[in-house]
């Protein structure tokens, strides 16, 4: 029996999915990143009842007090507990990142796949449009979208901060799908010449059936990798917008908003260092972990790595 067991463990798993999963599980930094993200998300979700009630609770007499036993991360200018704001803000940051990544992946995959399957002039026109959008500075598109849709969206939802987050997600997501569209188009172009697609076509499958049943499962690798790397990108972009004062509306915090407030609290005379340090610790470690996971997935799904 021992020989059989040994032989089994030497054989690579049958499906490419399993093989990728196994490779990913062997990647220590990626697994550490994943574990960190899981713990952080669980912590932020578990404390939500308290942070939701307390993120905007102002005690002006506590304004700018350094970290202490009752306030582990200190208090901000308005005497709000910074730890609560960091935990609550992290959820908003994650929501913005996940939402924007989901949007950009959906739009990018559909656009790229349709262009590649349509082929010819339609493909050409669609990809030239992508080229043109690439030629525009992304910050311009994001701000224009915010300026254009903020008021109608607030009217629609009726809750200003919520409308603000929705617009932000839509703006970041709708400018970052371009790369995904290009990648997917290239993949579909090479996949659609494969014998199995021809066989499906010969068996009478329509273009939608081919896309859903035969192409998408083969595209899961690049989609997952891109989506994971798009999340930290979106979170970072939100933080830039917050720094410029056009991110999420006050008093709702995100890590970007908190870091920007921290930068504003640093000056040459007295520095309220905790207001910058703690949001940056959360932001930096979370983005680092997300990037580790994304890199690990890319290595795991890369057909070139054995």
């Amino acid at each position, binding site marked *: 029996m021992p020989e059989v067991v040994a032989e089994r463990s030497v054989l690579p798993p049958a499906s490419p999915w399993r093989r990728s999963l196994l490779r990913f599980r062997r990647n220590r930094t990626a697994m550490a990143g994943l574990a960190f993200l899981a713990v952080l998300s669980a912590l932020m979700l578990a404390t939500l009842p308290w942070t939701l009630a307390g993120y905007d609770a102002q005690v002006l007499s506590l304004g700018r007090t350094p970290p202490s036993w009752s306030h582990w991360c200190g208090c901000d200018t308005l005497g709000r507990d910074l730890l609560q704001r960091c935990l609550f803000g992290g959820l908003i940051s994650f929501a913005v990142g996940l939402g924007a990544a989901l949007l950009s992946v959906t739009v990018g995959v559909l656009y790229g796949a349709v262009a590649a399957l349509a082929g010819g002039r339609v493909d050409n026109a669609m990809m030239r449009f992508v080229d043109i959008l690439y030629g525009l500075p992304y910050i311009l598109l994001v701000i*224009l979208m915010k300026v254009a849709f903020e008021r109608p969206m607030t009217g629609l939802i009726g809750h200003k901060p919520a409308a603000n987050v929705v617009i932000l997600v839509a703006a970041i997501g709708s400018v970052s799908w371009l790369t995904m569209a290009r990648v997917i188009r290239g993949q579909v172009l090479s996949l659609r010449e494969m014998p199995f697609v021809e066989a499906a076509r010969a068996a009478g499958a329509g273009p939608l059936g081919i896309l859903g049943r035969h192409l998408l499962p083969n595209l899961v690798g690049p989609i997952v990798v891109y989506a994971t790397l798009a999340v930290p990108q979106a979170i970072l972009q939100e933080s830039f917008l917050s720094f410029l004062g056009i991110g999420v509306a006050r008093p709702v915090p995100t890590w970007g908003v908190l870091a920007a407030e921290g930068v504003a609290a640093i000056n040459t005379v007295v520095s309220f260092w905790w207001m910058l340090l703690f949001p940056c610790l959360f932001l930096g470690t979370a983005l680092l972990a997300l990037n580790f996971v994304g890199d690990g997935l890319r290595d795991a799904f890369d057909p070139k790595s054995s």
Partner: protein
Amino acid sequence: MRHLAGRVFLMIPVLWAIYTVTFLMVVAVPGNPFQQADRQMPEAVQRALEARYDMDDNWAYYWQYLWGVLHLDFGPSFQYRDWTCTQIIADALPVSVLLGVSAVALAVAVGVPVGVVSAVRRNGLFDIAGLTLALIGVSLPTFVTGTALLLLFAVGLGWAPVAGWGTLAHLPLPAVTLALPFAAYIARLTRLGMLDVLAGDYIRTARAKGLSPARVIWRHALKNAFLPVLSFLGPALAQAMTGSFVVEKLFNVPGLGQHFVNSVLNLDRGLIMGTVLVYSTLLVVMNLAVDLLYTAVDPRVRVADA
């Protein structure tokens, strides 16, 4: 040569399309700088102002502005009424170009050697430390790394002025801040490229015929591994040369980046289109230059073209 002329000629429709898309977006956004909620003007004055700035007839404006652009005349600024957009851009662009070119040069000078050494000593201490540093470089927003540099070198050590522009001493801090994410990305690109190339047969040949390891790595391998970095340099230079709004805001640098943000927030039509056109033109020209360099460096592309 005919190929080159064709490529240059092709830039015209692309830029025209970018101009048209920008124009359509700007027109679609409601409001203009003359409609202020707190200061209502008599309707006649409002209409006279709009007529003065050709806002009453969008298509007339479209053609008139296009005609102006061909003469490097970007029209009057709606917000800074004593200035023309051409003056504003002419003042700000050289500042951004100097800052951007220094930053990208610095990023290449640091990123490429780090990437090469990481790849050669794969999974060694330098590789892991370098990769982690590079990931941190892309995981922290520039306003945080910039603030850290400011605190350390300007406030703490007093080696550089805190903010401003005008002397050579003002250049290093914003340039390093701007260079960090680029350097991190270039190091990762170089490392991946080198890992790919070092496994190639011609590297084994070069080693077998007795070339020194240094010569094999820096001359033979790097020449091919540099190609992905080269194609990244086109958009990177265009981006860096038109200014980073975050770095400019942090260090109080009077560059072009701030106008990308402010012109949209002020709905300053002339300046929006002017800055976008400057950016797009730089991007298109840089991409063309990179493609030409590509043919010079990589003989395979030349063969494919012929």
